[in-house]
């Protein structure tokens, strides 16, 4: 199970697990999208605390979910990014689309 979903009213949190690359991103994408569809959250939190590695496939993953949420005017929030993950997100300019918290920040 690479994604654990936690629903709290209009707030949905997806806890991602493992490594994000092209290979693993497929399954995660489906899991998150069906959670969005089912729960129609006004805010989605993607929690990266258990992601040990991410390449630009993870950017595709985040951007795709961002677009999906936009349709319902919902917000995206990214938490617990390790330095490696944050560096990739920074390069992609993801902080212009979503609030990004580094690991350890609260």
């Amino acid at each position, binding site marked *: 199970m690479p994604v654990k979903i936690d629903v709290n009213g209009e707030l949905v949190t997806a806890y991602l697990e493992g*490594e994000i*690359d*092209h*290979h*693993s*991103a497929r399954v995660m*994408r489906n899991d998150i999208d069906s959670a969005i569809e089912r729960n129609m959250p006004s805010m989605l939190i993607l929690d990266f605390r258990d992601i040990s*590695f*991410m*390449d*630009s*496939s993870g*950017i*595709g*993953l985040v*951007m*795709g979910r961002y677009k999906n949420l936009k349709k319902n005017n919902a917000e995206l929030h990214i938490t617990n990014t390790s*330095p*490696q993950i944050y*560096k*990739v997100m920074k*390069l*992609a300019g993801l902080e212009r689309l979503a609030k990004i918290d580094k690991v350890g920040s609260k």
Partner: protein
Amino acid sequence: MITNVLKLVIPSKSSNESFARVAVASFVAQLDPTLEEINDIKTAVSEAVTNCIVHAYKESMGNIYITVQVIDNLTVKIKVRDNGCGIDNIKQAMQPLFTTGGEERAGLGFAVMESFMDKLSVKSKDGKGTVVTMQKKLSIRIS
């Protein structure tokens, strides 16, 4: 002087993406790089290998050839080669956000390689394949 070399060949199965970057990272780990250096290399290799699988061989299967040269125990030179479809406009392909891979590709693979490594060069022949060469000099460790 080349102080160590690794040659590695794997088929373009997407489940090998993770193996490829881990293998290169553990080879480079002998040089005692910083965590950030090793992560940069891992990420760049992941991009190059993924491109072989997603773009070069698309629906087909083929071999991915990875060579890692260690120069003077300090500089890491990595070649990732495929015999896939090739890139006809390399300049365009290397532009950030450009992708032929559809919705879920960010078009940032080359941007990551360029920014996380010191040098990047791409050579390609239409229908013949592509070679990506990347280089990174590690910081000198005082021990």
